[in-house]
């Protein structure tokens, strides 16, 4: 009697909570959440993203409107203050830094995400195809990547920006041209080890065509490494864009980006208007820091043997 109820209870408990399989992604999720630096970084990063979306609603000045009451004595009147509506102060010509920093942050994030997106799509397909087919196709495709890789792309990108004019589109094209190379290499290497596994053999044995094998069986197994690499690519792309903006070859006025703001701020800091450097710098460093930590956390979570 007693034993019966106990068995009953166990059976009931089992019926209520069926054993869940722990997938790779669920495991990775647990590991990621346990990594405090990565988790905090993720929340800070989300905070920055939310700020760039919500922030403009609180702005009292647009990115190009000049506050004439400040012009000429930016040091004594253009400092950060709530009363004047310049929460981050003004820049050298009296434009509101709050709005400009928000736009700069948006541009930086966009560049990073577009660069990573192109890398994920083009790089994954390119690398998987090269790795899967192997042989002459592989060495031809990867030789092409090698050649592109050893060209000092920064100069080509600057050349592109000068010749075709400076614009958002050109910037994104330039970033996209470069970003996928590393991804293609990583993915190819991973594909080489994957394609000799039993499940690929099984798929081929059942008559799956090469492209089906690549997209149904190989690419899903690459996702872990692709996600990690893409996350680490974002700060690289942001650095690239900021570098170009710092040289004054990025987006055109009145549009701005964090690199351009840092460049302006570093030129004017000798007059004492230090906030023009500090605010963009803080946002810039925060974004890079958090992306690095999130990427690191993802790598630890998705690739446990690396720890």
């Amino acid at each position, binding site marked *: 009697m007693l034993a019966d109820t106990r068995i009953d209870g166990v059976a009931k408990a089992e019926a209520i909570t069926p054993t869940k399989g722990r997938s790779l992604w669920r495991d990775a999720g647990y590991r990621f959440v346990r990594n405090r630096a990565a988790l905090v970084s993720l929340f800070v990063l989300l905070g920055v993203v939310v700020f760039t979306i919500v922030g403009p609603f609180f702005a009292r000045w647009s990115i190009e409107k000049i506050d004439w009451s400040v012009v000429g004595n930016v040091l004594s009147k253009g400092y950060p203050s709530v009363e004047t509506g310049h929460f981050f102060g003004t820049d050298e010509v009296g434009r509101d830094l709050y709005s400009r920093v928000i736009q700069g942050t948006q541009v930086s994030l966009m560049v990073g995400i577009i660069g990573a997106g192109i890398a994920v799509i083009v790089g994954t397909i390119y690398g998987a195809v090269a790795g899967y087919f192997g042989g002459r196709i592989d060495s031809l495709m990867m030789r092409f990547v090698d050649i592109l890789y*050893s*060209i000092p792309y920064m100069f080509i990108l*600057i050349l*592109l920006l*000068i010749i075709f004019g400076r614009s958002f589109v050109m910037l994104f094209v330039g970033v996209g041209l470069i970003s996928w190379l590393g991804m293609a290499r990583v993915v190819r290497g991973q594909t080489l080890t994957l394609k000799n596994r039993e499940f690929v053999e099984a798929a081929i044995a059942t008559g799956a065509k090469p492209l089906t094998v690549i997209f149904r069986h190989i690419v899903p197994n690459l996702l872990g490494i692709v996600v990690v690499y893409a996350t680490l690519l974002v700060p690289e792309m942001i650095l690239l864009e900021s570098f170009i903006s*710092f*040289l004054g070859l990025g987006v055109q006025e009145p549009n701005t980006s964090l690199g351009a703001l840092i460049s302006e701020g570093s030129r004017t*800091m000798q007059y004492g208007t230090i906030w023009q450097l500090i605010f963009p710098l803080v946002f810039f460093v925060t974004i*890079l820091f958090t992306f*690095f930590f999130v990427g690191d956390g993802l790598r630890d979570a998705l690739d446990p043997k690396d720890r």
Partner: protein
Amino acid sequence: MIQFILRRLAVAIPTLLVLIVVSFMLMKMAPGNPFAGEKNVPQAVLDNIFARYGLDKPEWQQLLEYVYNVVFRFDFGPSFQYRDRTVNDIIAQGFPVTFTYGAWAFVLAALIGVSLGIVAAVRQNSWADYFAVGVTIGAQVVPNFVMAPLLVLVFTLWLRWLPGGGWNGGHWSNVILPVIALSTSYMANIARITRSSMLEVLSSNYIRTARAKGLPSRQVIFEHALRPALLPVVSYLGPVFVGMVTGSVVIDLYFSTGGIGQAFVNSALNRDYSTILGITVLLGALTIAANLIVDILYAWIDPKIQL
């Protein structure tokens, strides 16, 4: 060995040719011509100018002549902007400056980075290790164009120890800040790479054997562990070189050191296409050569690579 070098050259030379051809075609695609000023120049005069610069010939012939002059006579042609100077003059003026602080930065980054990495690995979890790891993380988010203003802010504006710009014939006080700004992030990366590979080597079996037979710690580290631990560092030297070449643009721009980067940005803003082209090709060739040397060095150090 010779065969290995020849195989590498078989990639390097086409890469260089691709670089020259692509840059040349980009230049030809640029709208307008370099001599279209505000004044209306009579057609006869324009024809004469075009003939002098060889622009009246078909483009394929111009390209062939350009490649021939660059490869066999090391002649980058006349500047389009400064009538009395050739591109070679402009390069000859800027190159020694860039080479001076670039070489210092390269040596400094390698020496200090490797030493820091070794110390951190040998004394793992000591204050030296935490210091090295902390510096590494910090330097990842402080690229040279952020480092430069910060250094000037501290050492020029606050402490007034060092000049914040100029070259002054290469006086030591003018060289220090550019070298630090250029080398910091690479130094940190080299330290990180050295540390992790050193840790891996130190935990391997043959190191335990060496310790077990009673060798002094110094001998184990420097004679047994260092060489394999440096392999990843050597393969990173190529990217370091590329980074320093592109970084010189920032250094020249920010510190007004008058190096080749300054010539590049100036010619970029002046649309002096022949100078941009010349500098791109020269720096591209240097990059490709540096990668080649790194490859050979790597193969020479690593006994696993069969030459």
